[in-house]
């Protein structure tokens, strides 16, 4: 029984991957649709990275800090050093990871709410520092960022989409491999019972910091990808909504799973966009809130648990 469940899941994964690759072929180069898909991919990377940190029992309420730092560093070095964005995004990721380790150090002995509040405060600090350094960051106005693919190239949006898709697939595969490795087992043990994890001989400090670094790295890359898609960056990248989206996506999709953040991001983003086409600009916040509450009450293990739930009610 366990085997066929795995097969169903891999099957769904492969089919959706193929779909993702042929979307531009079937639907043509639709600027609006591809833009939505690109943002969806950015947030799949971002949510998967947030979820990896959550897997170690560390819930961050301020991940926008890493998202923004990755974006700003990448924008600044492409502007000043002339590096191509595709290289700069990794520099942004590394810088975010470095900051992530520093934050991780302050969080090692903290748990749950205390940790969440520290990360929350950190996003505010990152925002303030950015607006106070106008010569570097452009202050409140922000700075332009080179496009990932120059807009003068025909069908640039399609190339952009495929680059994002490849990076997203790579990130998800890497995170999947990490969770299946010894590190994944250690992170899970730390989340379940930190004292016990220590007694098992797990270097808790090292793994918590590694989770912070890897999560911040991919979050930084996601942030850099987003701003190189939009072509500019402003301090809005540190917004509270940016911190909360990956949490909303991961919880609605299924915490601590690989598919959860992916599914959650896709489903919620599409509901969000559909609501907009109906002209519900502000009402959609209420509707998304209601959907979230319903998911948490009726599907505490997220959308990924639907197949199991159906199976259990129709054996």
């Amino acid at each position, binding site marked *: 029984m366990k085997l066929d469940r795995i097969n169903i899941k891999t099957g769904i994964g492969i089919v959706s991957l193929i779909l993702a690759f042929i979307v531009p072929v079937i639907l043509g180069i639709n600027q609006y649709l591809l833009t939505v898909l690109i943002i969806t991919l950015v947030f799949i990377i971002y949510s998967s990275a947030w979820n990896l940190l959550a897997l170690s029992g560390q819930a961050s309420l301020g991940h926008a800090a890493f998202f923004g730092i990755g974006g700003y560093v990448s924008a600044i070095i492409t502007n000043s050093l002339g590096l191509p964005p595709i290289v700069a995004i990794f520099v942004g990721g590394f810088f975010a990871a470095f900051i992530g380790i520093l934050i991780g150090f302050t969080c090692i002995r903290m748990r749950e709410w205390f940790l969440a509040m520290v990360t929350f405060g950190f996003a505010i600090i990152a925002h303030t520092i950015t607006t106070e350094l106008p010569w570097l960051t452009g202050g409140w106005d922000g700075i332009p960022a080179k496009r990932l693919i120059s807009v003068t190239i025909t069908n640039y949006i399609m190339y952009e989409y495929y680059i994002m898709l490849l990076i997203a697939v790579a990130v998800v595969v890497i995170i999947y491999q990490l969770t299946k490795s010894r590190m994944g*087992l250690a992170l899970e043990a730390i989340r*379940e019972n930190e004292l016990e994890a220590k*007694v098992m*001989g*797990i270097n808790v400090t090292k793994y918590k910091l590694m989770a912070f670094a890897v999560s911040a790295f991919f979050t930084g890359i996601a942030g850099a990808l987003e701003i190189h898609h939009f072509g500019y960056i402003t301090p809005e990248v540190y917004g509270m909504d940016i911190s909360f989206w990956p949490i909303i996506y991961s919880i609605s999709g299924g915490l601590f799973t690989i598919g959860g953040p992916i599914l959650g991001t896709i489903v919620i983003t599409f509901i969000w966009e559909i609501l907009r086409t109906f002209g519900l600009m502000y009402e959609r916040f209420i509707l998304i809130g209601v959907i979230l509450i319903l998911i948490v009450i009726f599907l505490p293990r997220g959308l990924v648990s639907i197949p199991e739930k159906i199976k259990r009610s129709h054996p």
Partner: protein
Amino acid sequence: MIMLEIKGLNVAYDKVQVLWDVSFNINEGEIVTLLGSNGAGKSTTVKTIQGLLKSRSGSIRFMDKSIGGLPAYKVVAAGISLVPEGREIFPKMSVLENLILGAYVPRARAKDLRDESLDWVFKLFPKLEERKKQLAGTMSGGEQQMLAIARALMSKPKLLMLDEPSLGLAPVLVLQVFDIIKKLNEEGVTILLVEQNVHHALGLSDRAYVLEKGRTILEGKGFELLSDKYVKEAYLGM
């Protein structure tokens, strides 16, 4: 040969000192019991040895090497394993995953070594093999305690420390736990036992130390302490 040597150990939680100049030692192959009432500092002692707490002063030597101040994962790697009080397991993981985590240290993690350890603990606890796919949290209290002991064994410890392994178990299970401890000792594992179940523990032990208010106040052979006037009055209610 002395395996573990504790000298002048002082430990405090912030400003409250709980261990005062605690000294004792364990020879290779022995079963040694730490006795004492609630709050005497028994758990603090084993946690400090394991590296979960830092001592203010004093020395801890294991196999002729100082291990005082080392982080827990290095102490486990050196060959000391603790079964903490209260059957702390990973409830949402399967029995097998719990055991695999027990073999996390470099010394025990190689696949063939791990399979060997699994065979060993399954022989000691046949119930665990039947239940290896079950979530650990869904087992009974006694089975969870067996799992906690089995998991500590997966790191192939030279010294196994058990913190109140009989706490909250039904009398028949208590006997089983003590049987297992005896069997492990016969297979060459040195044992430090923290117990309130004085009668059983002393009957099993080669030697015992009595802790009171954070100080070692008595030392003796297990059966000698059983007939000691002070121990009788304080712990056996006679």
